[in-house]
């Protein structure tokens, strides 16, 4: 196997930045352009870049498919859980107003958590799809 020394070293510099940028897009989404979907895609791209340069097996050790699967489900669960929490707080489904003592804080908290759920699911789905396709045709699969 070719060692790909330069891309590997460079990507080691880049991947943390990509993931940090994903978190910025995620949590700045309330105030500026961005949000859960974009952040999830960027984070997923970081994972994919890692697996391209360090091989599928090592990537699967860092991001075990079973854990990714739980994140896929967990993000949706977080999103829906916010909706159910709003019902138990006395509002309609996904009515963020009732989530905090003040409607504005409630809206802020609600959209933050919902977008976090979207981000988690999208990142995990991106990585899972890549692992599935990259792993096709292998004997160990």
């Amino acid at each position, binding site marked *: 196997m070719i060692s790909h020394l330069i891309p590997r070293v460079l990507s080691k510099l880049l991947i943390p930045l990509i993931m940090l940028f994903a978190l910025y897009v995620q949590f700045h989404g309330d105030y500026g352009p961005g949000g859960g979907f974009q952040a999830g895609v960027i984070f997923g791209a970081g994972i994919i870049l890692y697996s391209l340069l360090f091989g599928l097996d090592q990537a699967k050790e860092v991001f075990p498919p079973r854990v990714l*699967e*739980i994140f*896929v*489900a*967990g993000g*949706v*669960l977080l999103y*829906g*859980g916010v*909706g*159910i929490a709003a*019902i*138990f707080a*006395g*509002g*309609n*489904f*996904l*009515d*963020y*107003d009732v989530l905090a003592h003040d409607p504005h804080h409630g809206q802020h908290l609600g959209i933050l958590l919902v977008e976090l759920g979207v981000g988690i699911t999208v990142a995990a789905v991106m990585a899972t799809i890549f692992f599935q396709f990259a792993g096709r045709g292998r004997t160990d699969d």
Partner: protein
Amino acid sequence: MIDALWNLIGDDLPALQIAMPLLTATVCVIVRRPMLAWAVAMFNAWGAVVNASILLYRVWTRGTISYVEGGWPVPWGIELRIDLLNALVLLVVTSICAVVLVAVPRSIANEIPREKHYLFYATYLLCMTGLAGMTITGDAFNIFVFLEISSLSSYALISQGRTSRALTSAIQYLIMGTLGGTFILLGIGMLYMMTGTLNLVDMADQLALLGVNRTVLVAMACLGVGIGIKLAVFPLHTWLPNAYTYAPAVVTAFLAATATKVAYYVLVRFAFSVFRINLTLDGTHGGALLMTLGIAGMFAGSLVAIFQDNIKRMLAYSSVAQIGYMVVGLSLANEHGLTGGLVHVFNHAVTKCGLFLVLACVVLRMNSTRLSAFAGLGRRMPFTFAAFVLGGLSLIGVPLTVGFVSKWYLVLGALDAGLWPVAVLILLSSVLALIYIWRVVEVGYFTAPPEDADEVAEAPLSMLVSTWILIGGTLVFGVWTSLSAGVASAAARMLIGGVS
């Protein structure tokens, strides 16, 4: 304690109807153990039946329910709107979902690898989410979103069949289904362009002010074609026989009784609530077109069914014919005809789901659904085969079964409209059903099994229970019609009355 909980969630049942299957689907993925995932799915599915029953009761006693998601007021926010029409469809969908789920573990045990079972349950619940969402949402774009959720999950479910033909059938359905979804989206987009709203009630009001113009007509055509593909109305049914034949047995039972029924509901909703009947049917010859296609479907489906060797495929073609009946009921556009179409949604769901569950039992024990596998089945698997006979009688439309109730209303509707040839054609096509059912019954009771055949046991109890709940349903609702025909005719009065 329970009172306090009920105070909190009592008004949120419409939202829970959609949210709970979605959330339990994710729980299935997290718990992973097949039987645990099944238990979670069962809990949710039967809860959904209770939920849908309460909603139907409320609509019946107190009138239409409107629920705004996230507290955003109508027409800007997404509204869940439940009236008699979709409350009945919702009850059908959730009940079928729950009853089939009882039979699922034994049936998929030898069709799907064990490590994929939890994903099967998750996908099954996602499909249920989409179908329930399409049924109760009052928002046009929301219909499209839920349509995609249910379609994508049904492609995945179909592709789990044992043979590789399941994959090609799933792809075929995916291509046709995506085409259909695109047409629906185009239609909704044009309506949005003309009315500036996505709320169905608001859209109907705006369209009534706007009158007919070319964009609205094209939107109507796009929606008609798109929903027609999902509904598998003849001649857009080509995906259906393969998808039903090669899907896992329980998936066929589930989809045959729910997916096309919800598509029919969407067609009725657009034809009668959004566009209003005079526009859809009178102004554009839409009624004549639908009636022609419906009658053609009745005969084409039944005729092809007669010559099928694979019984699962035979019943799939029979579904095309039954969809024809529903479409004819819609196109008659009078109270009895529409009642017939709507009550046939209920009745055909119960009948066909029961029959496909019989085939699930047969394929479990005989490993085949070809006609030869039915030889002597009347003695070898008596309970299973008796269920087939009763379901078949209902398909033909023998009195005391649900099939008779639907055809009675359809014939009345045709006579009300002064179209006695249509009434004759409906009865004639029932004779065709008699032929294809009789072929199987004859082989089952009067042909001896091959000499070297192994002993076969009766189907497992869980599968017999869910089969007989449905087959029993065909008899119960054939005699006691207040739930099915009562609600359907009230819904038909509401839809027709909204116009005049």
